């Protein structure tokens, strides 16, 4: 049965190393799901025997890093999961709780087999006994169908089990996902005592990867590290998906080679300053940057961190001049406070206090506003003090906002709330952004 689908020649379907896009190749602007037959025709088969022996070192050579937000080197994570010698478990993290991100949903809805290929290759390489796909309700059926097709064709070393990820910002946090996958509430655990990579699902060493990370793994497993590194830079090889909100036409997911100037990726021209007042990078646990910084940045986590920013899981929100940035910030902090799991004192009290403080500077009369000093103090106070990094994200978000919007803070303090506070929210909440992509792909000069 397998022979009808799996082609033995892995070079079939291999795209030109510098061809763009990669993950989004062949996906129209809108459209349906790429089924298994079409998928294998497009990309060729994976050689799992090869993966078992060589994928670990190939990934090491590729320099691939995680796309879930932390940017941790993939090969190093695999090594630590495999170290214990006990049979590990692979988790596809498709929860994508971040409201400003739609890239994982796009991959899982349109090209699920690319993500599942990555999970299968990982399972072969580290000898996993189970593969669990953790996806939100609206993707459940599609991913189940994809997993079913793979099972019928005996494609994978172990069958892929599909589980529902609850709604919510933190349900995709690593330990929350592990809890959710075991039928417990999807809330974080204090994992300093027992890292997930040592003791995760069923107490087994568990490899949790973001869905996009696994799609890149699928390409390295097929075409190797040299192919992978033909795009991007030496220090930031490959490509990344970005969810971009705030431009006319609504949110889009696009793919770009790492190292590309962001102005090019975002299609920003000389009128960028006239159109936008600032940008949020990395989502609601990310950082604000002013437009001058944005225009100078190249697309890489390293470049972002040099400017005290982060790309997080690949999120850019451009903020137009019609919005009050303080109102936007206050709404996000209120949302993030509400999304706290409510388990840790410093998170509960600290985010609550930050919420009150940000509401005051955005919406209240000057005499009732919290001082910027007290806000930055609260940010420092919550950092590193939760069981998960949710408060750290809020701290980063607010600290950067205080720096980038210093003149707006001063103006609110002098004159009270500005006339723009009633503008509709520019930042998305709750309702998931549509998984549509721009068909735009950028590569370095």
């Amino acid at each position, binding site marked *: 049965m397998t022979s009808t689908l799996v082609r033995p020649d892995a070079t079939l379907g291999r795209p030109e190393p510098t061809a763009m896009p990669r993950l989004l190749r062949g996906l129209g602007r809108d459209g349906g799901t790429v089924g298994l037959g079409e998928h294998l025709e497009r990309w060729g088969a994976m050689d799992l025997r090869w993966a078992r022996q060589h994928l670990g070192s190939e990934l090491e050579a590729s320099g691939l890093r995680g796309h*879930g*937000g*932390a940017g*941790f080197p993939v090969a*190093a*994570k695999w090594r*630590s999961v495999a170290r214990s010698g006990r049979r590990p478990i692979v988790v596809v993290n498709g929860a994508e709780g971040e409201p400003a991100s739609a890239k994982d949903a796009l991959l899982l809805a349109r090209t699920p087999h690319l993500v599942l290929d990555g999970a299968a290759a990982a399972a072969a390489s580290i000898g996993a006994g189970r593969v669990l796909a953790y996806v939100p309700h609206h993707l459940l059926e599609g991913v189940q169908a994809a997993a079913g097709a793979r099972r019928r064709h005996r494609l994978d070393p172990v069958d892929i089990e599909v589980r529902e990820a609850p709604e919510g910002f933190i349900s995709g*946090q*690593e*330990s929350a996902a592990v809890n959710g996958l075991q039928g417990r509430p999807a809330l*974080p*655990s*204090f*994992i*300093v*005592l027992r*890292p*997930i*990579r*040592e003791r995760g699902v069923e107490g087994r060493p568990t490899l*949790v990867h973001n869905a996009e990370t696994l799609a890149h793994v699928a390409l390295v497993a097929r075409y190797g590290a040299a192919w992978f590194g033909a795009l991007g830079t030496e220090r930031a090889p490959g490509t990344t998906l970005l969810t971009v909100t705030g431009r006319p036409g609504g949110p889009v997911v696009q793919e770009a080679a790492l190292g590309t100037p962001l102005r090019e990726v975002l299609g920003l021209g000389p009128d960028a300053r006239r159109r936008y007042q600032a940008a949020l990078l990395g989502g609601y646990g990310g950082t604000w940057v002013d437009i001058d910084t944005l225009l100078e940045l190249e697309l890489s986590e390293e470049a972002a961190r040099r400017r005290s920013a982060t790309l997080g899981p690949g999120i850019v929100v451009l903020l137009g001049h019609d919005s009050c940035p303080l109102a936007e910030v206050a709404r996000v902090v209120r949302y993030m406070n509400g999304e706290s799991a409510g*388990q*840790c*004192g*410093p*998170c509960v*009290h*600290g985010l609550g206090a930050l919420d009150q403080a940000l509401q005051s500077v955005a919406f209240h009369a000057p005499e009732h506003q919290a001082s910027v000093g007290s806000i930055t103090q609260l940010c420092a*106070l919550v950092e*590193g*003090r*939760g*069981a*998960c*990094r*949710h408060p*750290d994200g809020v701290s980063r978000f607010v600290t950067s906002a205080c720096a980038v919007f210093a003149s707006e803070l001063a103006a609110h303090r002098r004159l009270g709330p500005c006339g723009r506070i009633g503008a509709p929210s520019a930042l998305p909440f709750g309702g998931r952004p549509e998984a549509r992509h721009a068909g735009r792909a950028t590569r370095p000069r």
Partner: protein
Amino acid sequence: MRRAFRIVVDPIACCGEGLCAELFPERISLDPWGFPILSDEPITADLVEHAGRAVDMCPHLALHVMDAPANAGTGGGRPGEPARLVARLAPGGRRR
């Protein structure tokens, strides 16, 4: 020779009783809401007994002794250096 160690607080277990800051003020202070802030400074030999008492007396068993170096303390899925629980701290301390 005793290994370098540090104390971490499990913020989920911690209910902000504040006993630890009373027993080990050299390295533990309280935030405005009464939850402990643990200093990064190493726990020197002369402080081991105080540290051990704080760990043992926590009514919620929220304090843990770990090998230094620090593992950032939070674990948002960012694998750092593997940190190991140290089974026992001060002589006579409660076994964990």
